């Protein structure tokens, strides 16, 4: 299974796969940022692979100078009964990324959540708003420089009279 996947992807995207990680029996492909749409389209529509179920999208804040953020796509193939992860590195200076909502509809809320928590902007997303926090909130809570207890007075509270 693993060989099939690695060969298939290498054949098509040789230059855009930065790294292949096989840890704890789980495959992770590190993909170039600008190729994410192509890779996802290929994975979903290839007859042998058919990764038709997007399980999750999440962000990771590595808190380092270069490529501070990562976006992780967790995909499942109903045909192969197999799960892989794609990982994209996003630099803090350029927080924009192509949205995959055109490929999997479910990416809609996952991307909104990633935007809400990390401030990563997904281009061509149909409705990119905050999902958990109020719209007027200014910070991105899951970034490592945001304190656990929040920033005082950043969220309004009704007055007790």
């Amino acid at each position, binding site marked *: 299974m693993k060989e099939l996947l690695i060969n298939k992807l290498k054949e098509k995207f040789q230059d855009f796969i930065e790294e292949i990680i096989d840890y704890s029996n789980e495959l992770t492909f590190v993909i170039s940022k600008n190729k994410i749409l192509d890779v996802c389209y290929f994975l979903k529509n290839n007859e042998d692979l058919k990764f038709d179920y*997007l399980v999750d999208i999440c962000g990771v804040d590595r808190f380092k100078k270069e490529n501070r953020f990562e976006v992780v796509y967790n995909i499942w193939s109903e045909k192969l009964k197999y799960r892989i992860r794609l990982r994209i590195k996003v630099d803090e200076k350029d927080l924009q990324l192509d949205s995959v909502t055109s490929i999997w509809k479910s990416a809609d809320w996952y991307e909104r959540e990633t935007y809400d*928590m990390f401030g990563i902007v997904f281009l061509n997303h149909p409705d990119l708003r905050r999902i958990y926090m109020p719209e007027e909130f200014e910070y991105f809570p899951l970034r490592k420089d945001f304190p656990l207890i929040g920033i005082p007075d950043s969220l309004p509270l009704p007055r007790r009279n």
Partner: protein
Amino acid sequence: MKENSLSNNQDIRNKIIQKLLEQDVQIVSEDPLENTMVLNMGPSHPSTHGVLRVLLKLDGETVVDAMCDVGYLHRGFEKIAENSTYHEFIPHTDRLDYLSPLSNNVAIALAIEKVAGITAPPRAQYIRTILCELARISSHLMAIGSVGIDLGALTYWFYTFTEREKLYDIFDLVVGARFTTSFTRIGGISHDITEEGIQAIKVFIKELPNILKKCEKLLNRNRIFIDRTQGIGKISLNDALNWGLSGPNLRASGSERDLRKDEPYLIYPELDFDVPYYNEGDTLARFLIRIDEIYESLRIIEQALKKLPEGEIISNDPKNALPRKEKIYTKMEELINDFMLVNFGINPPVGEIYQAIESSKGELGFYIVSDGSGYPWRLKIRSPSFCNLQVLPLLLKGQMISDVVAIIGSIDPVMGECDK
């Protein structure tokens, strides 16, 4: 004098009308019958199962469009996880899907064990499986009961809730807490199951089918109930996969995806059970599949109880698993281990894993990024309710307003898990 002012007024009015007529003015009157209206439902609404807010665009009684607004219960689980050790985070998972806390406990324990590279001893795995399935039953009983409430069948809810109370008694006996269990530990479980507990479970699984039969008589062939659920809120298999549905909601649309079979964990490969599925994909199918799953869970529990092996309940791994309390107070080495584990936590190797279980709502997964310290660098919760709710606008479109509550109830969202 009076007449004078009247004629004056008339003059002014005429002048204004003249002025208006000279301008290019369009007078539009809105006819309320030809317009859609927006209805706000929630976040405090009896049938939104918590604090879900739905905005409905209505044309008469038909829902033209809908939009969900979540986040009213966003408690920052993932941020809390980053700031607590692995052991400290286990009690938080009770509050994720509060209808089946035990399966959340099992999920997080499995995820941490995977990242630390340890496994629980067989007896612990059997007990985990039994409790997981009991949690599934308790969650499904609530789900089918609340569909009943939403459609006006309150008696049905009384039946299912009585069974839930019995389950709570079992949890009280076996786990030690009625509601928030926090039963699992890294590498095993908190304490062993007693003979009394096993007997209580046996009595419960023997009696439940009779009660369920009674419940089925109430609703399953009830004309009013079927008319209100059959063909309502339909979703095809393709759409369901594309929108990321999981669990019973996906299986009601014709898929057989069940992580207990596809990505086996615990002792499920050793047990014999079926995965029920329906092809209709409507509210009725989503309701019926939950009843079928309860029967399957009963089968699983029965087999697991028969095979339950003797032995340790927590792995003998001083770097990861907490030592037994009686040893802490009598032995020096255990005391040191306990001190180290409580203060600095376990230190799993650097790496990232994803571990999912089939919880009562669907695929409940934990993605853990470890940086080698006692705290997870990132812990992402893949919560099934969040993904299932996303499809709600699609299901609601074109339905009548009175069906909205039935559809929300049949998806069975838990907002604690959805909002994290």
